[in-house]
Every structure is written in structure tokens, then in C-alpha cells.
């Protein structure tokens, strides 16, 4: 665990030693309420709830989480510091998990920046705070899934821009696999059962039930599996570097 804690501390410090965390947090703090107010018409609904904020959250996270994750391994490979890490007596899972938890902490901090909106809703009316808490949990789980995928793709290249583009692409596919337009397109080319099974893999559908305040074990397992898949893939790709591409 000492390795994991050391990596976590270094990664959190690295986010704040450079402008990255400040830019990320500023963009999130501006964009999340802007979507809710301008696109989601937060004050036009006449209801004291944060649905408009969470309606657009997956699309915001889809772009911002790969931006947070892109440096995880691509930067280490580009600078040669991956060799320093691989020569340290740190288990590979500690390296991957330490980086992931650091990025997830920054994402959680970004979500906390929307708390003034929650406070405003409570001032203006009586929102269902349990449902809002569930929606925040859903947003954090979704962010975790995207970060894990982003980290895996960051491990596949030394170029951060490529890592970002691949990350956005992968998160987009995971998000829209259950969207009606995708289902229509897929059902034309595959059996209905296969298209439905693919729809079950959609992060959007899973997030939607959490957004509405419903916690199900299946949704929690889905998001934890998505994180496990991304982090497992990142571990496999980094471990493959030891083999020199064998």
C-alpha cells in the first residue's frame, strides 16, 4: 500500500503543480451550470430539482474525463519516467490504482463545485435530496468508468493528444450504445436480441436510473465492472511494456 499512497500523492500534486487541474476545474465549474441553465432551462421547469444538471452530465464527462486521464501513462512514456516507475518495487496494481484514484479525486472535487446549485435548490424549494445524492453517486461512478477507459487508452500511446481522442471515442461508444439512434442502426444489421444485449452495455441507460434516484445492484456492478475493465486493460498494456512488445 505504501506504493499506492506514494503514487496517489504524487499524481494529485502533479495535477495541481501544473495548470491542468485549475483549467479542468474552471471549465467544469463553468460548463456544468451553463448546460443546466441555458440548455436544460433549470429555472424554467418550475421544480426544485437538479435534473437539468444531470441530464447533460454524461456528455460533459465524456469530454472532460479523457482530458483528465490522457496524461496518466502517455506522459510517463514520453518523458521516460515510466522506466523510473517500473524499476521501483511498486506493484503494478498500485501504480494503476494510485493514478486512477488521484484522477477520480479531482473529478469528485469538480462535482463538488456544483454544490452551490444544490444549495440554491434547497433555498428555493424542497428537492428530493436522496435522489440528488444518488444522481451525484451516479455521476461519480460514470466519471470513474470514463477515467478507467481513458487510462487504458493513455497506456496504449506515448502521445497525449492521441490518448485523448481515443478516450473520447471509447467513452462515446460506451455512452451511446443504448441510444435509440444506435439501436435503430444496429437492429438493421444484427438480431434483435444482440442489439438489446448491446443496449444493456450502455452507460447512458445505467446512469439514467441512478439519475432518477434508483440504485440497483446491477447498475453498481456495471460501473464497477467498467472501471475494472479499463484498469485491467491499463495494467495489461503497461505490463506488456516490460516484455518489450513481445
Amino acid at each position: 500500500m505504501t506504493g499506492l499512497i506514494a503514487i496517489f500523492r504524487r499524481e494529485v500534486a502533479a495535477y495541481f503543480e501544473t495548470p491542468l487541474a485549475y483549467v479542468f476545474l474552471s471549465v467544469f465549474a463553468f460548463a456544468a451550470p451553463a448546460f443546466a441553465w441555458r440548455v436544460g432551462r433549470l429555472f424554467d421547469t418550475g421544480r426544485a430539482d437538479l435534473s437539468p444538471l444531470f441530464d447533460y452530465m454524461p456528455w460533459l464527462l465524456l469530454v472532460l474525463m479523457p482530458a483528465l486521464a490522457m496524461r496518466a501513462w502517455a506522459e510517463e512514456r514520453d518523458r521516460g519516467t515510466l522506466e523510473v516507475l517500473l524499476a521501483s518495487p511498486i506493484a503494478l496494481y498500485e501504480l494503476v490504482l494510485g493514478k486512477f484514484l488521484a484522477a477520480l479525486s479531482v473529478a469528485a472535487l469538480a462535482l463538488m463545485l456544483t454544490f452551490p446549485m444544490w444549495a440554491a435548490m434547497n433555498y428555493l424549494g424542497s428537492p428530493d435530496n436522496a435522489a440528488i445524492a444518488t444522481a451525484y453517486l451516479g455521476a461519480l461512478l460514470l466519471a470513474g468508468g470514463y477515467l478507467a477507459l481513458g487510462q487504458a487508452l493513455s497506456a496504449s500511446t506515448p502521445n497525449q493528444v492521441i490518448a485523448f481522442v481515443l478516450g473520447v471515442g471509447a467513452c462515446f461508444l460506451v455512452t451511446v450504445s443504448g441510444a435509440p439512434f444506435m439501436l435503430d442502426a444496429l437492429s438493421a444489421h444484427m438480431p434483435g436480441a444482440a442489439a438489446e444485449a448491446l443496449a444493456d452495455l450502455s452507460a447512458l441507460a445505467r446512469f439514467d436510473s441512478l439519475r432518477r434516484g434508483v440504485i440497483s445492484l446491477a447498475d453498481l456492478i456495471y460501473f464497477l465492472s467498467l472501471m475494472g475493465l479499463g484498469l485491467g486493460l491499463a495494467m495489461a498494456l503497461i505490463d506488456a511494456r516490460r516484455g518489450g512488445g513481445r
Partner: protein
Amino acid sequence: MIRADRLIKRFAGFTAVDAVSFTVERGEVVAFLGPNGAGKSTTMRMLAGCLEPDDGRALIADFDCHIDRRAAQSHLGYLPEGAPAYPSMTARGFVRFGLRARGYSGAALEEATRVALDRARLGKMADKAIGALSKGYKRRAALAAAIAHDPPVLILDEPTDGLDPNQKDGVRDLIREMAPKKAILISTHLLDEVDAMCSRAVVIAEGRVKVDATPAEVARQFGGSLESAFRGLTGSLQDPVISDQTGPRT
């Protein structure tokens, strides 16, 4: 303390390291010599546990670097080629990070950090961002991180590359100071460095060990100087296509 036992590494059909064997015992400073692309850095990466050999064994303090990697690495201080470090961190922060990853905390962490920064002669530069330091100080910061946990084995890939003469002397003094208690393997292109501080020289070319002897013996066998020996052993390999071949970075 360091044992390379018929190490083999291939990249896309090209054999970078071909059955390389040698040992380094405590109290020895061994120079690892060869032209660019000879397989020095690849061998060192395998010994450091950063790269798996296709065949053969790499052992540090009797621990296999791949079967028992973390135990081997806990006995090792490694300075990779180019001395990579995090530019946004200070030298002090970089040393502390390496120590924390090895389980250091509290007073032991502070003391080990102070000693490492002093030994690497970082001075006032210890609290500046590594990205703002000169090449020499960057290399010293990476060296400080490599020696901070006082490992019994040191593998240093071109530790004096790019340093000015005063800085080179400083690093050589530090290596001489540490030599009696450690097994040290150094790769270098500077033959005067071998004479100055190494007890043995292993010359490698085309991925194979050409000679493993004391610097004096190597010089005697090949015309009286290390330079003539180096040219004699590797001179036919100076074709730039061959000498630019190196294994991929990890």
C-alpha cells in the same frame, strides 16, 4: 550482487542482447562499455526489472529480477538513460517520492532525503522545479533519487553524460565514495572515467560480451590503451545504421 546469466533480448527479429553474462560483486565498480546500439541500456533495463529477457536470468542480490521482481528492486538503485525525472517536481520532492514508494516515512524519510541531496550536491537547487534546472543539476536530482534508499546495488546508465568537467568530478567522487560498500555497474562512453574509477570493464558489441577484464588487462591485450582496445573490439561496428539501433524505451 549483480548477475547477468546468458541474457537474451530480441526486438522484431533483431537480437539486441545475445547471451550476455557477467557478474558484479560488492566493492566492485564495473564499466559497461560499447558503441551506441551495442545492447548496454537494454541489458541494464533487464537487470533493473523494467524489461523481461526472452531468455536467461537477471539477478540482483540473489533475487531473480522477474520472478521475484520487487525483492530484487528493493535492493537496487537505478539511474535510467537520460536521467528522466518529473519536471514539475522539485529535486527534494522527487527524492521523497522515491523514498515514500519504498515505505519510508517520518524522520527516516527526512534524514534519507537530506543525506541524498547532500551527497548529490544539489545545494540550493534542491527546492527548485526540476524542469527549471540545468542538465547537470537534473542529472544530480535523478542520481539523488537513485541512491537515496542506500541500496547495496547501483546500476547507472551514463551518469556523467552531458555534465561539465567539475560536475563529472563530483559524480566520480560520489561513486568512489560509495564503491567499497556497493556493487556498481556503470555504462559510459568516457574511457578516462573507466581508468579513474572502475575495477573492471565489460565490453559489449552487437549484443555480445567481447571482453570482461580489468581495465589494465583490456588495454594490454589490445595495444596498450583502453581507446585502442575499444576501437579494436568495436571498430568494425561504427557504421551509423548499426550504431543507431537501440531497443524501444519502456
